[in-house]
């Protein structure tokens, strides 16, 4: 188990859960990031933040401290 911000570009992972019930968590959930969903890291912006991920048919960018709230399990 690790968090989404720790993945490297090209890595895929399965979402394990998100901690908390604040606005950020609600937005992440609404965008489709919840337990059991698959995500793929596309890359990081200059200076390493924010990061871009793919989720199903679309791409999202989020800041690393936001991604740190999402715990994931690496997929091969």
């Amino acid at each position, binding site marked *: 188990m690790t968090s989404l911000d720790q993945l490297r570009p090209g890595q895929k992972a399965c979402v394990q859960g*998100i901690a908390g*019930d*604040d*606005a*950020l*968590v*609600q*937005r*992440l*959930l*609404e*965008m*489709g990031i*919840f*337990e059991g969903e698959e995500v793929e890291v*596309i*890359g*990081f*912006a*200059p*200076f*390493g*933040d*924010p990061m*871009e991920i793919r989720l*199903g*048919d*679309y*791409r*999202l*960018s*989020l*800041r690393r*401290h*936001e991604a740190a709230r999402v715990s994931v399990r690496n997929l091969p």
Partner: protein
Amino acid sequence: MSNPTVALVGNPNTGKTTLFNALAGMNQRVGNYPGVTVEIKKGRVHHRHHAYELLDLPGTYSLAARSPDEMLVVELLLGECAGERRPDVVLAIVDASNLDRNLYLVTQVLELGIPVVVALNMVDVAAGQGITVDHEGLSRRLGVPVTPIQANRGKGLEALKQTVATAIGAGPPGRGASFPEIFDRELAALDSHLDRKVPPFLVRRLLVDVGGYTEKLVHDRLGDSWTAELTAARRRLVEAGCGVPEMEVRSRYRWIREATRECVRRPEQRPLTWTDRIDRVLTHPVWGILVFLLLMFIVFESIFVWAKPLMQLISFGKDQMSELVKSFMSPGPLRSLLTDGIIAGVGGVLVFLPQIMILFAFIAVLEDCGYMARAAYLMDRVMASCGLNGKSFIPLLSSVACAVPGIMATRVIENRRDRLATILVAPLMSCSARLPVYALLIGAFLSPEQGYAIWVPGVTLFGLYLLGLIVATLVALLLKRTLLRGETPVFLMEMPLYKRPSLYTVWQRMAESGHMFIIRAGTLILASMILVWALLYFPSAVPGGGNFDELTSKLDDQLDEVRKEIPELKESLNRVEQEKAEVERDAKPGSKEQVRAASLGEAIAVMQKRLAEHEASVEPLEEQLKQKQREWKAQSWLGKAGKTIEPLVQPLGWDWRVGMAALASFPAREVFVGTMGIIYSQGKGEADDENFTGALGKTLQVEKRDDGGKAFTIPVVLSIMVFFALCCQCASTLAVIKRETNSWFWPAFTFVYMTVLAYLGALVVYQAASWIA
């Protein structure tokens, strides 16, 4: 009875605005609501002899409101917004290439109790990715009509209009997603606890949205007798394994997956799209930044350089109009009001149009093609270090040309606090209107001609730009810690598919921005310009009889006449001299020709004397004119105000004349140069006329204070420049802030904080520089 109302809702980047434009055409207007910064466009749609009102609600992913702006959408949909009727139909647009997430909003809309029509957009884009949607099957699963369209090509719109027309008056749709039983029980309990005074839709939001805006709304309406009950209900849900907000999201997505399982076909392997290929370059840490910088250079160059000829054309037109009015009106307050007040003021408003429209053309293209999200992605880290986000970059960059289009460009920032912070610091960016002030003072006092090294002017100018940038960063950080404090806004941003921008949308954005600036901000700008005109015009009576306006106009006319006659005289003198030379060449002594040559000689002498007289009279006339203009403005109300505030500006090293010129520059900073020209007897002149500013600079170099000391020393010059770097002497900026924030508080706040900063900055610089000198 008014026309039926249709509310258009959808996620951002689904082609919602394109659909709105395609349906409403030019029949559009903008609705403003108190207390929110979003605007809602309304249009009229005609279909088979019926007219419908179409409301374009801001793009959103969910109806879980977190801000007043988001709550406005919910209130409009519930018919709880004063002055607006409840929509008869909700038209929900969804992106076929990304259906699951788009349907999330639809499942919430289904619970409003209003008929819903789904417009399935971008079916072509989806097909390109191998995704096909059986819209009839989807319609059966959702329980509402689903019409496939291609908004950008206008396909399927007639069928869509027909479907919407049929839906009016239909009963509410089926409930859609279902929730765990315990949730429904808690919902019913909370509803009865609130005595059913809150619409059921909001009771659900109240229970789900922890810390959401619904909590504040219900608190404002009913007090807080319900908070303990709400906390307990949420705790019971967590204990039952159905904690909010996750339970809502899971239930909805489960229902969506079920609904789309059989009617959406997608390829086993996701194909590599154009967007994937383009993004390999455009979001690359090196290539991406290079492309971004190049694009930003073009944007900046265009608003700085391309707009210039158009702006000059507007200035030229303004001057021509003034001349025209002057030619057939006699001097007096009315003529001055028309030429120096109204025509100058209208010109002063119109002159912003080229910059605004060019910038908005770029923004429209960048947004419409999907690049804006990439720009924000690339710049976010840098902007986050001063408390802003990646989307603040383009507005702030534009503000280096002019804060007016820059502030208007903050509309791309969805987060209210980030947008406000960007608006409030944008006027600190060193804009082009400060350049004439800097050019005048640096040219006259810090140039190589004054014995300074060749790099001094450039470094001074750079320092002033840097000062604005540094102060803006500090103010942004401070604002985010104080006035605009709150939890860090969610950055989470969709990276939309790239697409070809629609020319119509681009044109629409340009026209809209120009129109809004003129209508909403233009009147305020004009009013401030007329006010300052009046303060500089009155009183116009010369002590001891006469009128300054008539006096200076008469002197001006005399001067014009003399100046016009000089070349005429010279020309006829030349002619006569030539004739004399010809006559003399053939003349024999005692002949008729010689007599004629002698009489020509006499005529030449008379003409030379007249010419000399004329030439000699120019300078005294000029002196007299400048003297009268100076006397007039010095005794005007603004002149008196300058003298009144002299004790206030003395610590900055200024005398009352500088103070007065600073006051007069309230409508626009460059007015400072023109006012200095008048008050220092250089006559009238434009800030961009190099001859005028050069001459004014020379005058300022030798100007003495009333006590005999030099009026302009280096500390004084630095103090003036720092003041202008930090002040908000720009009525247009304040008018645009008023317009964009929909409140008088923020422009007042901006003016006060910047003026205080400017004063303190000038004070510190003057005192420190004097001490060093």
